């Protein structure tokens, strides 16, 4: 079981009663329909802690990550990260936060080198230093350096996701938001990424918020886990605590018992 050094008591993320609604007009002149993606979510993540958020598609995971990464503005509640308040301090916060999304989005005609240097420049990093750091990270993730100048479109999904992680880590952020970083990866790439994250946490003490469908991954990486369903955090605790509370031997059954929902097939099958 993963344990966190209890001397680290500072909070890296404090989310309180977070709400988000999406409004959509029904047709051209129809009434505006409201859909609540988050209905008052509260949780905290300690510095150096890895917090796993588990939930099926549509549970609000990606909306939550998008709010924390300053892409969306909440309709209610408060978010405080690394001592900064959202949305007031969003520009300062962006400089201290890395994010990996599920889709490893890149400019596919450009090489990993060009993509990473572009990201580095947006964060105001010196190109040579950024390139050196990117190379180190990619080597740690098992990417051959000779592929560093090939167009990304010629690379596998696993490789692209590794480059995506390298991009998030270029600025050496104290806080990392990972939105299903291993979804769709082959087993080896998945293991590579998980091992890298463990190593990163041990080395740098990086705080990680991880959303995933993969129970085994959540158990392996997360100190604490939150179950998200229909925009609400229905249960929270260590993997052992959640299993005990549900009275089930594994985390997936605990999830079903506590949320009344099943996780999507894709991740579980791998």
């Amino acid at each position: 079981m993963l344990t966190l050094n209890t001397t680290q008591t500072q909070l890296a993320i404090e989310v309180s009663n977070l709400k988000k609604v999406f409004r959509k007009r029904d047709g051209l002149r129809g009434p505006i329909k409201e859909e609540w993606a988050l209905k008052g979510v509260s949780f905290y993540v300690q510095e150096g802690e890895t917090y796993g958020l588990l939930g099926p598609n549509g549970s609000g995971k990606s909306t939550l990550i998008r709010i924390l990464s300053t892409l969306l503005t909440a309709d209610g509640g408060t978010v405080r990260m690394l001592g900064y308040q959202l949305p007031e301090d969003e520009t300062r916060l962006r400089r201290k936060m890395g994010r990996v999304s599920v889709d490893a989005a890149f400019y596919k005609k450009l090489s990993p080198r060009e993509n990473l240097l572009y990201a580095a420049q947006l964060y105001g990093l010196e190109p040579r230093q950024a390139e050196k750091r990117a190379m180190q990270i990619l080597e740690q993730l098992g990417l051959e350096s000779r592929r560093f100048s090939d167009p990304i479109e010629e690379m596998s999904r696993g490789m692209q996701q590794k480059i995506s992680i390298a991009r998030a880590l270029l600025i050496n952020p104290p806080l990392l938001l990972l939105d299903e970083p291993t979804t769709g990866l082959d087993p080896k790439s998945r293991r590579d990424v998980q091992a890298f994250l463990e190593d990163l946490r041990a080395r740098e003490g990086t705080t990680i918020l991880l959303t995933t469908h993969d129970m085994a991954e959540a158990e392996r990486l997360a100190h604490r886990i939150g179950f998200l369903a229909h925009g609400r955090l229905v249960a929270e605790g260590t993997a052992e605590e959640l299993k005990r509370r549900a009275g089930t031997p594994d985390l997936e059954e605990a999830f079903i018992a506590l949320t009344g929902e099943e996780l999507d097939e894709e991740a579980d099958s791998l």
Partner: protein
Amino acid sequence: MKEALKIARKELLTYVREERILLMVLMPLVILPLLMNLPFLLLGHYYQQAENKQQVIAIKGVPQELQHLLQRAKFVVQHSQNPRQAVQERQADVGMVYAEGRYTIFDRNSILNQQRSVATERTREVLQQYKEQVLLERLQSHGLELADLEPFAIEIQKTISEQQQALGLLAMLIPFAVVGLVISGGQAVALEATVGEKEKATIEALLSAPVAPWKLLLGKGLAVVVAALFSAFASMAGFALGNVFVRHNFSTQIEALPTDIRVQMGAWALTSTDLATIFFTSVLFAFFVTSVMLALGIFARTYREANTYLSPLEMLMLIPFLLFAFSDYVQVQDWFFAMPGLGVVVAIDTIVKGSYSPWQLGLTWASTLAYGLLVLFFAFRNFSREDVVFRN
């Protein structure tokens, strides 16, 4: 500003790497000069061939004297019972019959058969020469000269400027080429930089970077303006170089063209001041077009949706074309110069014709800048609204 330049650089790099986009820009560069010059060149070639070829004329009832004149004009004279049939059956290039004081020329004149057109023209010239000869003989028998039949001369002079005259068809094409190519050249980059980022989901990484949205927009806009101007002016350079190349290397074919067609072909006769004025007008137009494309590109969810918005706008550009098709009947008013798009076409047209007034040009510049700023404001608003950027 440094960030904006870096963003613009990345957008242009992506643009250069995309073969499809590059093709869209380079195609007009090659094709437009080719389209502009090749028909004239082929026509000149046919005329030259026809000039050098000994052509056969089938005649009936033609006097001996005229036959000698035809032979001197390099015709092979063949007597025929039915010159019309001889031409139809391709035994002769042209036919001529004299009966009851009338000369009839038989010709299968069509665009596809330029040789016979040349033969007919030469026959007409010979007949005219013969007519004048006969007339002169008759006048002289009465103690008169040919000049006595012409108490005064009639001359029609076109009032268009020398520059417009020298430019020929180019004078008409340049305004549309500039406007059309600014739009088409900028479109691919604008869509790639906006809705392309949405489709590839790269917009999330971009917007979560510590760069102000206006800098992102400025960088993207800069790339679109550069691509649009490159497309337009590379094609202009293509026009100019193509024209110079053809005139230098195919002078005999061009000389063989009839004068009116040669005038239409035109020559590159713009001064550096004209070019600078056109360039400045194009920069403002590229700014306006870029703002429109960014605003629509940010609003659209997919490439298809963005194209659905842009296609009708491009259709609107046909209005100036229609207007210019009837330009002899349309009096250009001052307010034309203040209309978005139309104003730029009219302004460049007046620059090319050398007939612009500073007031009209100023009106186009000021209005285009104002429209550009207005639309840019909407683009910025769209870019800052999560319900637009993330709408699905």
